[in-house]
């Protein structure tokens, strides 16, 4: 186990090095003059030159690369060309906002998906199984941006149950502003006892979280069902059934435990799916998180911010997969 952990950790470091190198050379080959982008449209030639020296762009590429890695190790990702603030600072401010959505979505997708999958497998061939099958087929087939728009149209425009977009109602921004302590608005409002804002934020979060949940929910449910059905055909289940263990225990305890390994892999992969979905969901619901930031960076070719965002998403993805590998090994001792 220790050797395995060490190996995985070494692999993780290697991947991160590759990732940062790729991101560096990718952003350096982007179209457009970075220094000109930095000073803005109407700048004079000498101002652009000054910015070039300031950003270190006059040095050879390999020196720039060395400098970039050094700074990266110190947690410095450079200055955003768009907001003119350190990218790290921008990211630290935006990440908690998105993480609130992502964590809820992941939680609902994982628990709901496993539950739906087990229910479908338990009632295999029945009407309930059919219904779940149709639902999950639809869930994996609907494009995220279209689903988000449908939610807005139906729950805001037709029913009027939930707000259209944003994080907090405008009048509450003035009467009960959110104090920034952890960056997670739900936590912050609870700590400060700001319950009006708490419920308002929660109310604003329902639709974006639902939009983020649906795709991974379908994937996880389908996989859980098929993995579980595979396991339930094995001899040891037959033996257990013959010895009189109840069906319910069979499915949830003996079956699910052995079906869990592929399910955990997919849950790890859904982290990336949800993170990428935030690009769309945050744009549509005007949620000021990392997806919104990334999108603005794409639109304005803000290469330092793009570098930071892709590094961050890549890192989260790689780490989630590693983490899931470790958990799988703990859950399933057969994996070598």
């Amino acid at each position, binding site marked *: 186990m220790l050797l395995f952990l060490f190996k995985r950790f070494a692999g993780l470091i290697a*991947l991160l090095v*590759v*990732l940062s190198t790729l991101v560096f050379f*990718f952003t350096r*080959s*982007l*179209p457009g003059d970075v220094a000109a982008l930095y000073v803005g449209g109407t700048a004079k030639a000498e101002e652009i030159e000054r910015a070039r020296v300031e950003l270190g762009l006059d040095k050879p590429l390999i020196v720039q690369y060395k400098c970039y890695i050094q700074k990266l190790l110190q947690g410095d990702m450079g200055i955003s060309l768009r907001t003119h603030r350190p990218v790290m600072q921008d990211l630290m401010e935006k990440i908690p906002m998105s993480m609130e959505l992502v964590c809820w979505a992941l939680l609902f997708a994982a628990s709901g998906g496993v539950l739906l999958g087990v229910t479908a497998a338990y009632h295999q061939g029945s009407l309930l199984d059919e219904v779940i099958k149709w639902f999950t*087929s*639809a869930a*994996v*087939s*609907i*494009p*995220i*941006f*279209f689903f988000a*728009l*449908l939610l*807005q*149209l139906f729950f*805001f*425009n037709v029913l009027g149950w939930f707000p*259209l977009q944003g994080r907090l109602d405008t009048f509450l921004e003035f009467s009960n502003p959110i104090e920034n302590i952890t960056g997670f608005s739900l936590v912050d409002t609870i700590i400060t006892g700001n319950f009006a804002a708490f419920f308002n934020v929660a109310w604003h979060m329902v639709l974006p979280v639902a939009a983020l949940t649906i795709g991974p929910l379908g994937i996880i449910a*389908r*996989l859980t069902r*098929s*993995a579980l*059905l*595979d396991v339930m055909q094995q001899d040891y289940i037959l033996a257990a059934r013959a010895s009189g263990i109840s069906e319910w225990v069979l499915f949830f305890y003996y079956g699910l435990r052995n079906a869990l390994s*592929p399910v955990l892999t*997919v849950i790890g992969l859904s982290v*990336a*799916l949800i*993170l*990428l979905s935030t*690009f*769309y969901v945050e744009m*549509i619901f005007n949620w000021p998180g990392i997806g919104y930031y990334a*999108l603005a960076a*794409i*639109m304005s*070719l803000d290469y330092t911010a*793009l570098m930071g965002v*892709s590094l961050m*998403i*890549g890192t989260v*993805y*790689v780490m989630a*997969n590693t983490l899931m590998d470790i958990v799988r090994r703990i859950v399933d001792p057969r994996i070598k």
Partner: protein
Amino acid sequence: MELQAESYEQMAKQVVKEHRQVKWFLLGQLLKRKAAMLSLIILVLTVTAALFAPWVAPYPDQGMGAVNISQRLSPPSNEHLLGTDIYGRDMLSRVICGARISIFGGMFIVVTAAFIGVPLGLWAGYNEGKSGAVIIKVVELFLSFPATLIAMAITILFGAGWSTALIALVIPWWPWYTRLVQGEVLSIKQMLYVEAARMLGYGKIYIIFRHLLPNVITPVIVMILLDLGPAIIAIGLLSFLGLGTQPPMADWGLMVWEGAQNILSEWWIAIVPGCAMFIVVTAFNIFGDALKDILTPGRSSG
């Protein structure tokens, strides 16, 4: 001797007969699945409509991007069955023309990815030497980063456009085929007939194409079918961000983006292409699932 020859002939006939029966069996299985048949009908209709778009669409020039400003933002009516968009273009024509990029683009991505990925997978699975190891390392590298993010990065780098978007999606897509085929080959090559072929002195290339390829073709076909839906969504994801097809060309993802601007008043502009996408992707997924059940029974689906 004669008797033996006759029995061989009979055996051969029996094999051919069984082979035919297998074909009928597949068709029968497919006919039994109503959802899959319905999906197939929908797919045949949409693909035909997309193929003959200039003749099927009521206003083909508007479908290609011609502006008709006097009719802008008109709701669904007899004249424009699905309404018109912000430039007055007929939505039905736009959706039919958009099907070309979405559906044929999706097919292009998946088939190209298979054409790149399958030979590499065969090679990597059969040769466990250096070249195979290098292929597997490259595949693992690609699979360790989210595919959509790679595609986005490539389109940003090389400039947005539908052709760039398609190529940008092929690049992170082929490794999945390599990994699938490599895994299959690792188990197939243990088989006695492969060993026998090797013993008889047949070359690598011959064994790969004669003995390995036919045995991996079924899972590859199933994967191609199951990937068509996700490929169509992936194209939509890029063009929704403005990284794929550029206006005034029609593309479902782009059309949803155009409609998202006035979703609350002129809802049909976003809903029509979105529904088209949803229906076609669902149909591909259900059909793919059914074929997977029939062609590779007893395999866990992912």
